[in-house]
């Protein structure tokens, strides 16, 4: 059979988000792969520098529907670093709790999607049913199932009361047991193993070379976790292992994520034990003094980087977001090349991609001539339609 080249997307029933993948296949073998993103550019960064800090909080929360808390957390940490304030300790612990709650919910969501991608619908249904428990916990704490709006400049919005603690502990214990059960399934169910072991393998060196991060990097045997390497909040006070796997494949990424759910539950238990009494937020100035800050946190998908520059007003001059998906995209192409067509969905899904979070537009000024360019609306439309 001759080599066949076909596009997947930007509109395609198998994709949840618009992106354009181009594959060259020889029979069932993938010879080449390329990706084009940019179909869901929402100009969030630009919008951020036209609104004040409190409004930006809402905007950053909506960069992603799944890691929304990680984005507000990173933004607040950056702005607080510029102002140079230390938020109340209890607020830091609650932020950490929310951070780990979100990791649990996101990893479980991913496991369900992974089951779906390999045609294992029952796993999808079961995991998403259990995920309702963490959703209920999030709702109890923040009042919302998604876009929790929990983190605010100077602390967190709501306190965790004693009544909540009982429910949270109960739910986390259940989730911990279920996660252990799923780790068991992932290592024993034959069809699951056949579809994940030795699929989308990338070595640790190659991952580092291509700048991968998060669970993808750890599943290739590189033990890098921002929570340990550059501790923020109170992560230096809790104990947790850095989960790595030498398998380097989709199975390894699955195991790392499932075990991180277990660890996240343990971190939450420690948080609940060690949380001191006190205020959960403080007065925060409207205007932020001139300065800049870079913040890196370990979001569930990997290292999330926020850069904020202020100019002394209540509006930031520049907010730059680097989402983990962008860092993992180059390595995801490595995963599908040389593999089977059937492995494309699960190999891509194994980086836990979120394309709408990732889409940015960069137009560089010419350094030599100093020319800068302004694009008109019609030019942008034209650019958007080029596929």
């Amino acid at each position, binding site marked *: 059979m001759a080599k066949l080249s076909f596009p997947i997307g930007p509109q*395609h029933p198998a994709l949840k988000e618009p992106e354009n993948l181009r594959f060259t296949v020889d029979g069932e073998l993938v010879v080449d792969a390329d990706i084009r993103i940019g179909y869901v550019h929402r100009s969030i960064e630009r919008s951020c520098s036209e609104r004040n800090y409190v409004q930006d909080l809402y905007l950053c929360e909506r960069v992603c529907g799944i890691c929304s808390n990680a984005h507000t957390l990173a933004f607040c940490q950056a702005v607080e670093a510029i102002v140079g304030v230390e938020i109340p300790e209890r607020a830091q612990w609650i932020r950490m709790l929310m951070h780990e709650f979100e990791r649990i919910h996101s990893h479980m969501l991913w496991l369900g999607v992974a089951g*779906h991608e390999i045609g294992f619908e029952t796993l999808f*249904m079961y995991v998403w049913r259990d995920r309702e428990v963490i959703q209920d916990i999030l709702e109890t704490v923040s009042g919302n199932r998604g876009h929790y709006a929990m983190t605010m400049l100077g602390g967190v919005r709501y306190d965790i009361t004693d009544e909540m603690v009982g429910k949270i502990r109960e739910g986390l214990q259940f989730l911990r047991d279920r996660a252990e059960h799923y780790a068991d399934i992932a290592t024993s169910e034959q069809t699951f193993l056949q*579809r994940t072991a030795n699929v989308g393998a990338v070595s640790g060196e190659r991952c580092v070379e291509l700048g991968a991060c998060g669970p993808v990097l750890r599943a290739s045997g590189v033990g890098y976790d921002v929570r340990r390497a550059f501790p923020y909040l109170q992560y230096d006070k809790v104990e947790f292992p850095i989960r790595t796997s030498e398998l380097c494949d989709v199975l390894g990424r699955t195991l790392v994520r499932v075990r991180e759910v277990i660890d996240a539950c343990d971190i939450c238990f420690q948080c609940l034990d060690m949380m001191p009494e006190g205020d959960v937020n403080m007065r925060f100035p409207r205007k932020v003094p001139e300065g800049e800050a870079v913040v890196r946190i370990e979001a569930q998908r990997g290292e999330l980087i926020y850069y904020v520059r202020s100019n002394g007003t209540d509006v930031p001059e520049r907010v730059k977001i680097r989402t983990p998906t962008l860092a993992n995209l180059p390595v995801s192409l490595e995963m599908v090349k040389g593999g089977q*067509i059937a492995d494309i969905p699960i190999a891509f899904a194994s980086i836990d991609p979120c394309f709408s979070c990732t889409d940015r537009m960069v137009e560089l000024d010419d350094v030599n001539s100093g020319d800068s360019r302004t694009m008109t609306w019609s030019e942008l439309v034209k650019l958007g339609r080029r596929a």
Partner: protein
Amino acid sequence: MQVLTPLFHVFVFPGFLFLIAFGLFASWVDRKLIAKMQNRVGPPLMQPFADLIKLLAKEDIVPESADRSMFAIAPLVAFAGVIASAIYVPMWSFQAANSFAGDLIVVLYLLTLPAFALFLGGWYSANPFATIGATRVLSQLFGYEVPFFLACLGPALVAGSWSISDITFQQVDGGWLIAAAPLSFAVAMIALIGKLERVPFDIPQAKQEIVTGPEVEYTGRRLALWKLTFLTETIVGSALIAALFLGGPHFWGIPFDAMPVWLAGLVGMIVLGVKILLIVFFLSLTQAAMARIRIDQMVPWCLLWLGIPALVNLGIIMFTMSRVGA
């Protein structure tokens, strides 16, 4: 009346109407069972019927670059093949609507038609996903079809007949042939999953990879025909396995001879219906418990773990028969 009886068999029972009605019911049972296993509510009884009506009412589109006649004929041939095969499979008594000395071979051939039609329909759709799906249909065919044929050979050898009605009738006195050919039965059941393109062998359809493969360009009436083909093939395939291995409508303690013809037919139909639903239950269970495997894993696995057991069972049967004969 002489002319009407065959027409009745083709269009009403056990042909067209009955197969569609029972197929829709079995599909509801299947969907409900999977839903229960997956902790969901599942569809209401009339949902498969409503889906069918919806598809029939929808616009029928033929891609511009597709081969118009092949595209249109493929689902018709597939559906006709399944309906025709139903006439030779016992559905209510030990005698099928029609039978002759070699009808087992004809039924096996007719049940292969949907796969070939699916390949042609997909190939002439002129869509990369359909093309990949179509080649997968053919590759998969080699995996399950050979073991399925070998498995059906077992009961035929024991009964010493190539007529399905004959084989079924012999089981009234001789006991169910699953006892003589247990491996063949297991092989036939698993090969049936491949034939019906269900998890873990739904590789040609694989909605996450190639968006239902060969069916991707089909819409409206023609898509409904494909759905019907697989619904009815589920019934005919299950009925064939029930007839060959599980005694067809036979069950101990039911005195078919003492009943009037209409009652014997009704009871036989119910007994066989229950057996078919049990096979559907097996299909649902595997669908709920497994992930889809890859085509490069499926074909060698099938030839090794289905082909060899089927051959071993055939060998045992031939050896025993030669001893008993001598």
